[in-house]
C-alpha cells in the first residue's frame, strides 16, 4: 500500500514533468541522470510488483487449512534458479553501463569551461572569480561570500539562510568548472537541480562542473556533515544570461579594483560583509551564534571559564585569528580561525571597524 501510492503518484507526476521523484532538471547532464534513474526505477518497480504479488497471492492461496496439512517436497529447481540468477545480471550490467556513461560525462569538464574557485568553510561558501583583462585594462579577481545582514534578521526561518547567503553567479549556456577545497573540515557542494555533487576536501582540490542552459536560481546544500551549523550551510547558484553575467562580473572586478585602495574601517566594513562575519555577529546588541559587536570596544567581557578580559585591540586581533583562545561566556566556541586567511592590513581594518561601531 505504502509503495503503491507513490508509484501511482509517480506515474501521474511523470506526466507532470517528472518532478515527483527528482527536482526540475536544470543542467545539461541532469536529464541523462534522470533517464538512468527512471530506468532503474521502472525495472525496480516491475521486480517489486512481481515478487510481492507472488508473495501475497501465495500467502493467501496456500494459507494453512488444517493442522495436518502436508506439503510437497520441492527442494529447488535448477532452471528456475539459473533464470533468476542470470536474467537480472544483464539488467545490472545495463545499469552499471548507463551509470558509468553519465559519471564520465559528469566527471570530465569541457575544455572551454569557465573556472571558479570554491572554498568551503564552517559554515559558508566563498567563491573566487579569476582576474581578467577587459578592453586592455587589467582587472583583479574578486571574492563573493558572506550574508546580507538585514536579511539575516529572520531567525528560525530556514529559507533565510538560503536567501541571505551570497550566491555563486554563473553564466547560462556555458560550462562552469568549480575547483574546490576546504579550509577546515569536509564539506560537500550539492546542487540538486543540476544533479551535481562533490565533496570539498581540505588539503586537496576537487572539481565539479555543470552547464545550466537556462537562467534561474538553484539551491546549494552542504551534504557532508561539518559540525554545528551544517544544516544552515546553504547557498544559491544564480544563473544569468551571458550578457547580464558579463556586466555583473565586470562590475565586480571594477569594484574589487577600487576597494584595493580601501584601508582602515572602510576596509573592515567591506570584509565584515564579504567574510561572512555578519552571519554570526549582529551589530544591534542582540545575540546570534556569536556575541554582538557594537559598542563593545573598551568594555569588560566575561570569558568561558570565569576570567574577564578588557576588549582592546589585542583581544580583538587574537579573537579573529585564534577565536578558540578566549571564548566569551555563554557562546559556543564555533568560530573558525582566520589565521593565515587575513593579512595584517585586513585584520587591522576589521579591528578599526569594530572600534568604530556604536
Amino acid at each position: 500500500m505504502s509503495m503503491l501510492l507513490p508509484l501511482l503518484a509517480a506515474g501521474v507526476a511523470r506526466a507532470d514533468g517528472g518532478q515527483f521523484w527528482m527536482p526540475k532538471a536544470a543542467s545539461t547532464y541532469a536529464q541523462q541522470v534522470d533517464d538512468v534513474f527512471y530506468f532503474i526505477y521502472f525495472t525496480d518497480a516491475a521486480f517489486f510488483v512481481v515478487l510481492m504479488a507472488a508473495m501475497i497471492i501465495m500467502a493467501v492461496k496456500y494459507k494453512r487449512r488444517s493442522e495436518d496439512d502436508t506439503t510437497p517436497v520441492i527442494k529447488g529447481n535448477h532452471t528456475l534458479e539459473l533464470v533468476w540468477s542470470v536474467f537480472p545480471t544483464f539488467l545490472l550490467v545495463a545499469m552499471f553501463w548507463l551509470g558509468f556513461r553519465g559519471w564520465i560525462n559528469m566527471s570530465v569538464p569541457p575544455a572551454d569551461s569557465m573556472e571558479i574557485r570554491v572554498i568551503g568553510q564552517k559554515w559558508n561558501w566563498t567563491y573566487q572569480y579569476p582576474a581578467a583583462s577587459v578592453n586592455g585594462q587589467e582587472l583583479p579577481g574578486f571574492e563573493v561570500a558572506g550574508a546580507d545582514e538585514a536579511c539575516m534578521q529572520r531567525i528560525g526561518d530556514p529559507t533565510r539562510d538560503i536567501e541571505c547567503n551570497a550566491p555563486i553567479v554563473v553564466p547560462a549556456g556555458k560550462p562552469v568548472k568549480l575547483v574546490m577545497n576546504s579550509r577546515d573540515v569536509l564539506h560537500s557542494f550539492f546542487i540538486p537541480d543540476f544533479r551535481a555533487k562533490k565533496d570539498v576536501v581540505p588539503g586537496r582540490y576537487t572539481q565539479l562542473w555543470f552547464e545550466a542552459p537556462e537562467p534561474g536560481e538553484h539551491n546549494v546544500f552542504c551534504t557532508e556533515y561539518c559540525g554545528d551549523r551544517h544544516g544552515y550551510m546553504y547557498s544559491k547558484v544564480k544563473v544569468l544570461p551571458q550578457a547580464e553575467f558579463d556586466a555583473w562580473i565586470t562590475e565586480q572586478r571594477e569594484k574589487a579594483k577600487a576597494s584595493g585602495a580601501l584601508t582602515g574601517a572602510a576596509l573592515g566594513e567591506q570584509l565584515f560583509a564579504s567574510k561572512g562575519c555578519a552571519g554570526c555577529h549582529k551589530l544591534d546588541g542582540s545575540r546570534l551564534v556569536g556575541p554582538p559587536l557594537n559598542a563593545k570596544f573598551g568594555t569588560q567581557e566575561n570569558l568561558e571559564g570565569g576570567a574577564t578580559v578588557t576588549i582592546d585591540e589585542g583581544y580583538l586581533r587574537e579573537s579573529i585569528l585564534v577565536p578558540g583562545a578566549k571564548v566569551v561566556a555563554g557562546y559556543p566556541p564555533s568560530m573558525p580561525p582566520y589565521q593565515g586567511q587575513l593579512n595584517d592590513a585586513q585584520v587591522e581594518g576589521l579591528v578599526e571597524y569594530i572600534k568604530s561601531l556604536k
Partner: protein
Amino acid sequence: MSSSHAIGHDHEHAGGHITPLPVYFAVYGALLVLTVVTVAVSYMGLPPLQSITVAMLVAMVKATLVGAWFMHLKYDAKFNVFTFLAALWFMASFFVFTFYDLASRGMVNEVTGQHVLHKDMDEQKK
C-alpha cells in the same frame, strides 16, 4: 594431525608432528643468513623501487620459513593453512583497492589528483 613425509625419524605421536631438531636449527640459520643479506643489500644503495622489492622478497621468504616450520603450517591441518592464506588475501584486497584509488587520482582529472601538501595549503590561504 597427520604427517607423511618429514625428514629424519618421523612418526605419529600423541603430540602431533615432532619436527626434528636439525630442521629447526637449519631454519634458524637460514633466517639469520637472510637477515644479514637484507641488511647488506641496504648498504648497496639500490634505487628505492629495487631496494624495496629485494627487501620485501627476502622478508617473504623469511616469513614463509617461520610460517612453515616454526608455526608448523607444513604439517598442520590444511584448513588452518587456508585460513592463514585467506587472511593474506583479504589484506591484499584492502591494500590493492585502497592503493588503486591513491594511485589513480588524477588519471581522469588532473586537478583532482593533486595531493596538496600542508605547506601548499598555507600558501593557498595567503
